[in-house]
């Protein structure tokens, strides 16, 4: 599959601190690429290097098969981005902000075209209002309008749902999926929340302390054969004894606390439930998790 972004051995050091460490990955064309990691894992530094806001200490970045360093302007013409907060010129109106960035992108848009772009993100009725009066969600939507108005092939979104209410988060999620499916735009999406990424990403990369932890297609990572099931019962010791003396003994995972963990295929869950019922064990909790979530939690709990 053709790659939109190719990153090779990317490293960034701030003095003695290595924020990004020998990171390599590829973003396939047409994908929704989820870029995951805890706060401070090196996501923003990586994205800033991708957007040429930070100079890498070493490594190579290519977009559309072109080296970023040499073809920066040409590459940025094909990219829309919101890096962290969507900060705009607060003393200008939404319309003026949009018009200004359109001109910087070499677009000579008419008034109706600009209003149309604001309509797409639901801000046409606030076109003449100064951005300093906008909520975080409205700024986020204006940022999206700016990122989208030049019909980019790739959109880079760094923590796009930060500071949004649940409805705002749902709207952004829907918009991302719509852009990907209807306009075939590749999306590079960073987040520190797996729950935010797993619902929409086709590919996932997890980094920790600047290093790649795991990278694969979502389909491979969310393999139902690797489901982890966490159970809690009215008597965990008794339940554990029964499980150890049964066909489930090979599914048992290392003890990670008061609850019991088993690794199995997702389809085996009813069978496990039946087994516990037949041995008169009352279930208080039965929670399936795929391996990625388990892995992500392990990584994050190690950090904490």
């Amino acid at each position, binding site marked *: 599959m053709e790659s939109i972004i190719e990153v090779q051995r990317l490293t960034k050091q701030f003095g003695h601190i290595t924020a990004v460490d020998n990171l390599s990955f590829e973003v396939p064309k047409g994908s929704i690429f989820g870029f995951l990691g805890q706060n401070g894992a090196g996501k923003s530094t990586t994205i*800033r290097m991708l*957007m*040429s*806001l*930070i*100079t890498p200490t070493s490594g190579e970045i290519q977009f559309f098969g072109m080296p970023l360093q040499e073809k*920066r*302007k*040409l590459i*940025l*013409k094909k*990219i829309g*981005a919101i*890096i*962290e*907060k*969507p*900060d*705009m*010129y*607060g*003393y*200008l109106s939404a319309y*003026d902000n949009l018009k*200004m*960035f359109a*001109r*910087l*992108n*070499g677009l000579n848009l008419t008034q109706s075209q600009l209003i149309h772009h604001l309509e797409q993100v639901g801000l046409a009725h606030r076109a003449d209002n100064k951005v300093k009066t906008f909520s975080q969600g409205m700024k986020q939507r204006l*940022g999206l309008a*700016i990122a989208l108005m030049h019909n980019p092939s790739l959109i880079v979104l760094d923590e796009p749902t930060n500071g949004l209410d649940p409805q705002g988060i749902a709207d952004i999620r829907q918009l991302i999926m719509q852009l990907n499916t209807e306009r075939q735009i590749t999306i590079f999406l960073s987040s520190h929340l797996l729950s935010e990424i797993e619902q929409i990403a086709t590919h996932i990369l997890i980094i920790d302390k600047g290093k790649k932890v795991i990278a694969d297609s979502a389909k491979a990572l969310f393999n139902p054969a690797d489901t982890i099931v966490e159970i809690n019962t009215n008597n965990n010791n008794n339940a554990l004894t029964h499980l150890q003396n049964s066909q489930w003994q090979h599914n048992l995972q290392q003890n990670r606390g008061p609850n019991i963990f088993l690794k199995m295929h997702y389809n085996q869950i009813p069978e496990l439930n039946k087994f516990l019922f037949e041995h008169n064990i009352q279930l208080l909790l039965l929670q399936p998790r795929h391996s990625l979530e388990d892995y992500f939690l392990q990584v994050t709990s190690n950090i904490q």
Partner: protein
Amino acid sequence: MLTLLQVELYKIFKRPRTYIAFIAIAALIGIIQLGLKLDGDAYVSFVMNNVEQSFVFQGNLLNGYLVCYIILQLLLVHVPLLIALVAADMVSGEANIGTLRLLLTQPVSRNEIILAKFLAAAIYTLLLLVWMAILALFVSMWLFGTDDLIIQKTRYLVQLSRNDVFWRYIGAFGFALLAMLTVAALGFLLSIFADNSIGPIVATISIIIFLTILSTMSIPIFQKIQPYLFTTHMVAWKEFFDLKVNADNAAINGTIQNKQQIIQSAGILILHIVVFIGVAMYAFKRKDILT
């Protein structure tokens, strides 16, 4: 590049802060003109006190040209503070509100951004001086009329014929523009290294004050370094108001006594501007945007 410049000018003139300098200059010039209108004769008499015993002055001594000269002497020292308000905010202000991030993800090069921003600051400086010229020169000419300009130098008096003054003001304002652009370039350079506006604005003003004091102190050790300080050369606009005399000690209209000094000072100021902006471009190209 032209688009970028238009965008930068649009941003400057959409901000209320920009107009503080225009209002401040109008207020200061208005106060000086009002004071001189009400009690100007007493002021002139006080200034000319020690020469009035040797000379008899006829005509309109307190004319628009003299008023403009007084205003320039008083104000040109303080205009750098107003210029620093905008120039030292050009990059750091955007870093502070986070828009620098958005600006640098647009398909424009960092060098283009720096040049457009400096040109926008230069145009702002030019407009500020044009505004000052309108108020200080043209309004004063209208309020006080015109006549010969008599200026007291340290050791002698200069009398410039009324027909020989106006072009000197054009030259003086042109030179003042160069001096103020040097200040703008310094403020601009400092704004590259900061992520908020206050630091570079205060630093620019502090450097100007510090160097101005060094430039005017008559202590031998400081006098050795004075030719290398740009603040020493910022006052060379006064050279436009001195003229050559012939063998009979009669003034030669249309001449400048020390043209070489003006050229040399202008060269040094231009060199400072080039160095400041060159360093700013170099530093900005390597700057990691972390805000």
